């Protein structure tokens, strides 16, 4: 038996304006977890997409179980036993969970012995068993669109697991999972290792990497940097290899001083009975309010309600002591509130538009000459400023955002809201999919904004991040606010306690 079950060697791949992969390589041993690391835009996803047949590499070779192979499309990859959880979720909202999981390989039975039909009973029974295995108790016949982003991500994981593969690619599988699901995923990964599956694990969460991986490959600017045994590695070493320089602190020094209350929410209740209800909280000038909770805690729904994306039945929002009516995002934006939404592809990026357009769209009114003509020069300056400030990897400001790496898209969206100069900034998982280096940049920006007297609400499923950044943490469980914890006193334990306080 070969040592490696799959090897990729000398892979090159260019997109217009970028050499995404420059002689990249990776070698996977069966029964191990192989972490693939690198900054945003380093080429991790691209390399995996080449393996999975989504992209066709310009040159290079893939050796699978000792044989040189060519993978022309995902169907062939699946056929060979390669499965992938994609960085960008690919849900079909209008179909059931079971149909989503078995898409492309529905169980077939023969009607009258010769007409092939989809065996629905088997499909749903299998789905049920599978969901149990990954510790999710959904009805397999529920529409996928009714789930939250994190639940959909769990479904995608279940889907990949069910493929009975030899190689499993997990491209940022935990980017919108909370603690419990991450634990569930790790148990599954252990099981897969047992059954000799080779796993590629891409993540920007250091603690995960060090915990579960056996080997680590690091990439930078599309190039292969090296492969190490995970047990020999430290956080700092990985970061220095990834970023190419030392990174001393994980969180910036905060100098903000929370002032008077500026934003008050009282008795806020969704029109959806299962969603947030009777939420009351306030926000001070210059304060960073963290929001913690498990998946389904309705943090996202609450914030979208406040921002006018969703409707509410009762409740009031007061800003600077004045009651506001918010029916649509524009109302909120006009009164100085901004929100970075959770689902980047669904409600964030304007795919076929340029990076410049994506950054400027929410603040165009500030760049008008004579109140009508857009001043392109000023916008270009704004865009360049953002590209530099956050180190956005893009060939130019005219590049279409859809061709940026996931993390860089996220940075562009952060830039969009900074450009709007809001007084209250709601950030729903702001560092989702962002590499450690850039995370630090974003934390610095957040701390800076707070220092300037802006108020920030930050939803995050990464508890260390909340503990590191927030002045105060609001914890939610099942649609209710179950308590507040002062930033200084917060620990994983006391957050979890409130987050699991079910009625």
């Amino acid at each position, binding site marked *: 038996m070969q040592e490696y079950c799959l090897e990729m060697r000398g892979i090159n791949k260019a997109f217009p304006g970028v050499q995404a992969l420059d002689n990249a390589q990776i070698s996977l041993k069966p029964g191990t977890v192989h972490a693939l690391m690198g900054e945003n835009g380093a080429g991790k996803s691209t390399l995996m997409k080449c393996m999975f047949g989504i992209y066709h590499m310009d040159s290079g070779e893939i050796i699978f179980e000792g044989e040189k192979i060519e993978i022309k499309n995902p*169907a062939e990859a699946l056929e060979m036993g390669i499965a992938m959880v994609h960085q960008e979720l690919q849900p079909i909202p209008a*179909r059931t969970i079971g*149909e*989503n999981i078995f898409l492309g390989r529905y169980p077939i039975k023969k009607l009258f012995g010769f007409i092939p039909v989809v065996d629905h009973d088997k499909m749903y029974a299998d789905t049920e068993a599978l969901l149990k295995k990954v510790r999710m108790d959904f009805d397999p016949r529920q529409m996928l669109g009714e789930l939250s982003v994190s639940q959909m991500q769990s479904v995608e994981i279940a889907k990949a697991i069910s493929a009975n593969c030899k190689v499993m690619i997990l491209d940022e599988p935990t980017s919108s999972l909370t603690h419990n699901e991450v634990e569930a995923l790790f148990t599954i990964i252990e099981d897969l290792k047992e059954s000799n599956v080779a796993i590629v694990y891409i993540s920007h969460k250091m603690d995960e990497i060090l915990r579960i991986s056996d080997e680590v490959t690091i990439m930078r600017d599309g190039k292969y940097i090296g492969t190490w045994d995970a047990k020999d590695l430290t956080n700092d070493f990985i970061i220095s290899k990834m970023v190419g320089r030392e990174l001393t602190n994980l969180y910036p020094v905060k100098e903000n001083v929370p002032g008077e209350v500026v934003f008050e929410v009282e008795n806020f209740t969704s029109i959806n009975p299962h969603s947030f209800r009777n939420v009351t909280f306030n926000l001070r000038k210059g304060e960073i309010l963290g929001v913690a909770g498990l998946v389904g805690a309705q943090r996202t729904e609450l914030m979208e309600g406040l921002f006018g994306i969703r409707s509410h039945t009762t409740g009031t929002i007061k800003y600077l002591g004045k009651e506001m009516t918010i029916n649509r995002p524009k109302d909120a934006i006009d009164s100085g509130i901004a929100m970075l939404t959770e689902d980047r592809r669904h409600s964030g990026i304007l795919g076929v538009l340029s990076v410049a357009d994506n950054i400027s769209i929410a603040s165009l009114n500030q760049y008008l000459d004579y109140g009508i003509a857009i001043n392109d020069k000023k916008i270009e300056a704004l865009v360049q400023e953002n590209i530099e400030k956050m180190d956005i990897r893009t060939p130019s400001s005219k590049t279409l955002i859809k061709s940026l790496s996931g993390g860089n898209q996220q940075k562009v969206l952060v830039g969009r809201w900074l450009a709007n100069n809001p007084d209250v900034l709601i950030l729903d998982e702001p560092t989702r999919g962002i590499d450690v280096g850039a995370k630090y940049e974003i934390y610095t920006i957040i701390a800076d904004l707070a220092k300037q007297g802006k108020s920030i609400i930050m939803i995050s499923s990464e508890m260390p991040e909340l503990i590191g950044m927030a002045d105060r943490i609001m914890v939610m469980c099942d649609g209710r606010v179950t308590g507040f914890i002062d930033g200084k006193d917060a620990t994983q334990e006391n957050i979890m306690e409130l987050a699991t306080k079910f009625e």
Partner: protein
Amino acid sequence: MEKVKSFFKKIIDYLKGNPIVVILTVVSLVVGLTVENFFSFNNFNNLASNTGVRFLIALGISGCLIIKGTDLSAGRIVGIAACITAVLVQRADYASKMYPQIPEMNMWLVLVIVLIIGSLIGLINGLIIAVLNVPPFIATLGTQTIVYGIALIFTNSQPVGGYQKVFSETLSAKLLPIGKYPGIPVYVLFAIVFGLIFAFLYKKTTYGKYMYAIGGNEIAAEVSGVNTKKSKILIFTLAGFMYAFAGYLLAAKSGGANAGLGQGYELEAIAGCTIGGVSTTGGIGTVSGILIGVLVFELLKVVLQFLGVNPYFNFIVQGLVIVTAVAIDIRKYVARK
């Protein structure tokens, strides 16, 4: 007792969700009670026949709509299929036979030929869309024009008639007469058969599942290993098949054909599908919905005719019905947030 209650509740829920059905039923009842002969076997059969043929076209186009596409060539394929049918079933002794060199053909052989040609045109549509990546709207706008040009050349823009007796007679037959009821028109029978086949295809087979998946999220389907190109090609080919079948029947039903036949039927069919809940944003639609949509449209036409509404106003009423029906229906799908 409980069961009966829940049964009624279900019906009421259904009607609440489908106000168009309610409105049209009420309107028909009123018309039926005030206008003579509206409730008659003849009228029922006419309505059923017209609906039947339109339903076949709508079934064909529904796949294209469900995968977020469209098919503007539907009407023209119906037209060319009707023309070919008409030419091939002409009597040998018909004085102004269009192509005297073509011998008299068996009507079922003609059906096979026409179906093959229709499927081929559909296949070409599918190839242009799936392989050349041309958006369906433009691809079928192009083929529509081309097909029409060919039909004009083929018929020299002359109407074609003079069928073999057996052709008209077979297809205008009525089956299973009971008492005063003259029997079910053959067209209706075909519609039922294809309705069942399509319901089966859409619900039970991978063909249908892939179709819905492509409409719901094409990339998702692609990365799950679905051969989306193949699916699209199949869908457009089947659509062509259905148009050709409808064209064959229409040639019989109208007793003759010309190149203009079928013009605009695609719009009617799309309207019918959409009224019946097929979503133009892809991934949603059922065969029963399509039937209701087409029926609504045809019923409307008959009601207007029986009421003797001025033809000009017909246009206005039909437009209003399309818009309001879909506006009401769409509320079901617009996510409550």
